[in-house]
C-alpha cells in the first residue's frame, strides 16, 4: 500500500482496501445482452436485482452504472422509473434520513441558509417538466476508434416527468450577492479517498435562474428513488445529466469560473474537430444536448417483406430545443434519399422524447444502412459521420441499420 488513505465512511461502508475488498458473493439473476460494441467486449449481464428496477443492463455493480435496454423505448415517451438508467461516479449512500437532510445554500449570497426538505418544498410554486436525462457519455462504447471510459451502448438516456421547485426560488431564500456568477451543486456522494475530487458541478447563473431549472423531489409522480438521487436532484432540461446533481446537499454560489475537477478538467470536449492522438487542444464544458433519434420498430439485420409497404417507427428528441423534423435517410453521405417522417403529438414540450413513424409504400429490395435523422428548431441536424472526440461525449451521429427484403 502506498500513502493513499481511505476515509472513514469508506471503511464503515465496507468498501475498503485490500483486506476488505471484494467479498465473495452470489451472482445476479438474469441474462446477457450484446451491445454491438465494435471490437468488443460487447456482452453485458442484464438483471432485475437492483432495488426498484426491472431488467437493466449492468455496466458496473459498484458504484452502480445501469443502462436502459433499448426495448424500453419501443412504446410511449416516458421511461418508467424501473427502467431509467443509473449513473454514479463514486460510491453512493444507500440510506437517507429525510428529517435530518439539509440543503446548505452559501457562497456569494446575502445570508447563508440551511434548508429542510419541507422548506425546499415551500420555497415556491411546484413545477413539473418532462425532460430527457442523458449521460454525456451515452453511446461511448460505439465510438470508432474506441475510447476509454464507461462503455455505454445508447441506453444511458431516459425521459421522465420531474417535479420540484425552481432553483431560483431556492436561491432566493439566501439572496444572491451582486458578485454571483455560477451556481455549484454537491450531493451526499463523496470520494472514498482523501484528496480525490468530489463530484461537484456548476452551471452559469443565467441557466440556474431559468424558469425550468428545478430542485426536484419527484420523478414520474413518485419520490425520487435513492438510485436517482433521493431526496432531491437538480434538473437542467436540455443539458446533459452530468449537471443534474443527485442527493443534493450543498448549493454554492460562485463569483467566477469553476476550477473544480469535474468542470475544469473533465466533461469537456474540443472546440474544433480533433483526431485520435491530438494533444493540447482547447476544450469547453459539454453542456447542451444535440438532437438524436432512433428506430425502435426494427433491429439491424431484421427481414422485411419485399413488394409490400413497410412502416418504421421510433422516437427522437431535439436536445436543448424542440424537434423540427425527423427524416428517414438512405445510405451514404447526404443520405442518397430521404423520406419525411410523421411526428407524434407534442405531448410534453420541447425537452421530451417524441415518437415518429414513416411508411415506405413499396419495399423493392434490401434497405442498406438506413437511419433516422432528427433536426431541431435551431436547425441543428444529426451528422452523417461521428464527431469523434477522445472522451466519447455527445454522440449523435445518425444510427444506421440494414433490413433484408425477403
Amino acid at each position: 500500500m502506498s500513502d493513499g488513505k481511505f476515509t472513514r465512511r469508506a471503511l464503515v461502508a465496507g468498501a475498503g482496501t485490500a483486506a476488505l475488498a471484494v467479498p465473495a458473493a452470489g451472482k445476479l439473476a438474469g441474462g446477457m445482452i450484446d451491445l454491438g460494441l465494435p471490437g468488443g467486449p460487447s456482452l453485458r449481464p442484464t438483471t432485475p436485482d437492483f432495488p426498484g428496477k426491472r431488467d437493466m443492463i449492468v455496466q458496473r455493480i459498484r458504484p452502480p452504472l445501469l443502462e436502459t435496454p433499448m426495448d424500453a423505448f419501443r412504446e410511449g415517451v416516458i421511461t418508467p422509473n424501473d427502467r431509467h438508467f443509473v449513473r454514479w461516479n463514486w460510491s453512493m449512500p444507500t440510506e437517507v434520513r429525510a428529517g435530518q437532510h439539509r440543503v446548505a445554500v452559501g457562497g456569494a449570497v446575502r445570508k447563508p441558509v440551511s434548508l429542510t426538505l419541507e422548506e425546499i418544498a415551500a420555497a415556491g410554486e411546484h413545477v413539473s417538466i418532462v425532460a430527457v436525462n442523458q449521460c454525456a457519455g451515452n453511446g461511448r462504447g460505439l465510438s470508432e476508434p474506441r475510447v476509454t471510459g464507461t462503455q455505454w451502448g445508447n441506453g444511458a438516456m431516459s425521459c421522465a416527468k420531474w417535479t420540484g421547485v425552481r432553483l431560483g426560488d431556492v436561491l432566493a431564500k439566501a439572496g444572491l450577492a451582486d458578485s454571483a456568477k455560477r451556481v455549484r451543486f454537491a450531493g451526499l456522494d463523496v470520494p472514498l479517498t482523501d484528496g480525490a475530487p468530489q463530484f461537484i458541478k456548476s452551471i452559469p447563473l443565467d441557466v440556474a435562474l431559468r424558469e425550468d431549472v428545478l430542485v426536484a423531489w419527484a420523478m414520474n409522480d413518485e419520490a425520487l428513488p435513492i438510485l436517482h438521487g433521493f431526496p432531491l436532484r437538480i434538473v437542467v432540461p436540455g443539458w446533459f445529466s452530468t449537471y443534474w446533481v443527485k442527493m443534493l446537499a450543498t448549493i454554492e454560489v460562485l463569483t467566477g469560473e469553476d476550477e473544480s475537477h469535474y468542470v475544469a478538467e473533465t466533461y469537456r470536449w474540443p472546440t474544433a474537430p480533433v483526431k485520435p492522438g491530438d494533444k493540447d487542444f482547447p476544450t469547453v464544458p459539454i453542456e447542451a444536448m444535440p438532437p438524436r433519434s432512433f428506430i425502435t420498430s426494427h433491429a439491424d439485420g431484421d427481414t422485411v417483406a419485399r413488394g409490400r409497404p413497410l412502416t418504421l417507427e421510433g422516437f427522437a428528441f431535439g436536445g436543448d430545443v424542440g424537434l423540427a423534423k425527423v427524416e428517414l435517410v438512405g445510405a451514404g453521405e447526404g443520405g442518397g434519399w430521404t423520406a419525411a417522417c410523421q411526428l407524434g403529438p407534442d405531448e410534453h414540450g420541447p425537452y421530451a422524447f417524441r415518437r415518429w413513424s414513416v411508411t415506405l409504400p413499396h419495399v423493392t429490395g434490401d434497405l442498406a444502412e438506413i437511419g433516422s435523422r432528427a433536426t431541431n428548431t435551431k436547425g441543428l441536424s444529426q451528422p452523417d459521420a461521428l464527431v469523434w472526440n477522445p472522451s466519447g461525449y455527445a454522440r449523435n451521429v445518425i444510427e444506421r441499420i440494414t433490413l433484408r427484403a425477403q
Partner: protein
Amino acid sequence: MRAALFLPLAFLLAACGAAPRVEFADASITLPDDPGDLPEGPGRDSVIENCTACHSPSTMLQQPKISREKWEATVKKMVTLYKAPVDEKAVPQIVDYLLAAQAGEGDVSRETPR
C-alpha cells in the same frame, strides 16, 4: 437479492388548494452484492488488492483493447487523480494481467454468469 425498500412519499393536497404539501419519508435500499469476478491469471490478486476498492472489476474488463502505455497511464490516473493506494511494485503485474485479460474473450459477463 431483491431487497428494495422504498417508502413512498405522499403528495397530500392541502385542503385550501394552496401549493400541494409534500411529505418526505426516510429511504433506504440494499444494493446487490458485487461478486467481483475476475478471470484467473497471474497478477489477479494484485488487481483485486489494488483496483477493486472503488469500483467493480467490470470497470477494467469492459474497456476496449488498449496498449500497455494506455493501461500504465490509466493506473497513474487512478493514483494521481483519485488517490488510489496502489502498490507501485505491483503495477507491472497489474498491467500484464489486464493486457492478458483483454487478449482473451474479455467477457464482462464474468460478473454474472448463470
